């Protein structure tokens, strides 16, 4: 449907790349039908709205949804889809983060603290990925995601009870959390109350985030899907704060990767602009809704999303191990 364009091989002159990239896009625009392009852009933007909405509610970037959408429904080559997806994740992260910061739900200190180990883990994961069989990793992650997903669904009601009974306030704050002033509070619009929370198990959370980063670097998945349950289950942070903080962390991590992709001329700017606009609209709606929804519903939705990701990882693992292709592999 969309003609692929030449990707520059030169890796040493970013400015040269930028213009090379512009030239490529211009060539692509000249050779594809104008009406077709406009239609494709509008369709892409509209399709991205529900993705942005879901991403805002559960604190994910949406890359794992965007890539299959672009490849299966729009016929884009996988490399082009991944590059567009990374730029779109940045847009989702910034839009979500700015709205949640305005609502004072995001915990910046906690986000920066965990980002340290997540990015380190992602870097190590990218190196380790070269030496470990990927099917083992996919199957391991599938097990973890399905277990955590079902657990989130099962414990959804408990989350609401914890918020109602102010249990997050009574948690024992550990020394690191105290030193770095990581604990905080937010206004829960659904409960119509100010919720105070204390951060605990800081070191465990930091190490668990390394694992999340490792999985992210090894398997190329976004971190949000693992960061939210780690903050919520290990560090005992309310799920809404975890979702908002995950969004803030995501825009930092994804921007570095996106810059590399853009500099190398791998991003189809026309299509990326359309997906960016669509995801921004979805995120703006989702961030307005999230704080008005009860925490148990968000946790259940998160559980379903995790189980879905778990299934995708399982399908990929089974395919790489045995060659049997399950749907979504």
């Amino acid at each position, binding site marked *: 449907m969309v003609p692929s364009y030449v990707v520059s091989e030169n*890796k040493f002159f970013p400015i040269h790349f*930028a213009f090379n*990239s*512009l030239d490529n*896009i*211009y060539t692509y*625009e*000249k050779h594809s039908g*104008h009406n077709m*392009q*406009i239609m494709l*852009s509008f369709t892409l933007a509209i399709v991205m709205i529900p993705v942005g909405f879901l991403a805002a509610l559960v604190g994910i970037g949406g890359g794992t949804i965007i890539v299959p959408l672009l490849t299966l429904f729009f016929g884009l080559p996988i490399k082009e889809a991944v590059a567009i997806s990374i*730029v779109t994740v*940045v*847009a989702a*992260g*910034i*839009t979500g*983060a*700015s709205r949640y*910061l*305005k609502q*004072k739900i*995001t915990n*910046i*200190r906690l986000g*920066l*603290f965990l*980002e*340290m180990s997540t*990015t*380190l883990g*992602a*870097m190590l994961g*990218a*190196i380790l990925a070269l030496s470990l069989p990927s099917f083992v990793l996919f199957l391991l992650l599938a097990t973890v995601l399905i277990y955590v997903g079902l657990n989130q669904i099962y414990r959804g009601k408990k989350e609401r009870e914890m918020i109602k009974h102010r249990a997050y306030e009574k948690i024992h704050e550990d020394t690191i959390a105290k*030193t*770095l002033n990581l604990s905080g509070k937010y206004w829960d619009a659904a409960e119509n109350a100010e919720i105070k929370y204390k951060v605990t198990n800081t070191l465990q959370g930091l190490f668990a985030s390394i694992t999340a980063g490792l999985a992210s670097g090894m398997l190329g998945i976004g971190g949000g899907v693992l960061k939210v349950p780690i903050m919520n289950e290990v560090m005992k942070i309310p799920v809404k704060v975890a979702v908002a903080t995950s969004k*803030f962390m995501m*825009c*930092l*991590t994804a*921007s*570095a*990767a*996106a*810059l*590399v992709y*853009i*500099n*190398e001329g791998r*991003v189809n*700017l*026309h299509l*990326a*602009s*359309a997906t*960016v*606009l669509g995801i*921004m609209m979805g995120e703006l709606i989702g961030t307005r809704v999230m704080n008005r929804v009860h925490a148990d519903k968000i946790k259940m939705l998160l559980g379903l999303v995790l189980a879905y990701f778990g299934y995708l990882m399982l399908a990929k693992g089974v395919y790489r191990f045995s060659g049997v292709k399950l749907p979504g592999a």
Partner: protein
Amino acid sequence: MNLEDIACKGLTLGLTISLIILTLGFFFAYIVHSSPLTTILFYAGIITLVITPVIVITGLLIVFIKMREKYMALITLTVIIIIIISGLLKR
């Protein structure tokens, strides 16, 4: 002004500018067929979007240094360094 306000203002500003540029890009794309201006606008919009978090985190580092929060400043600096290294590795 607290940390959240600074980060929020920085991200919102970057987001608004990029949104305006991208919308202009689509406006020109709709009117003018295959214009280089459209391409430049798309490029500028995306770049503005992508560098916004980098600028915001640098701003947060400066705030932590000004507030004499040495641990948080160190953590933020470490995050910036790791992000740069991981970016270079990806290249």
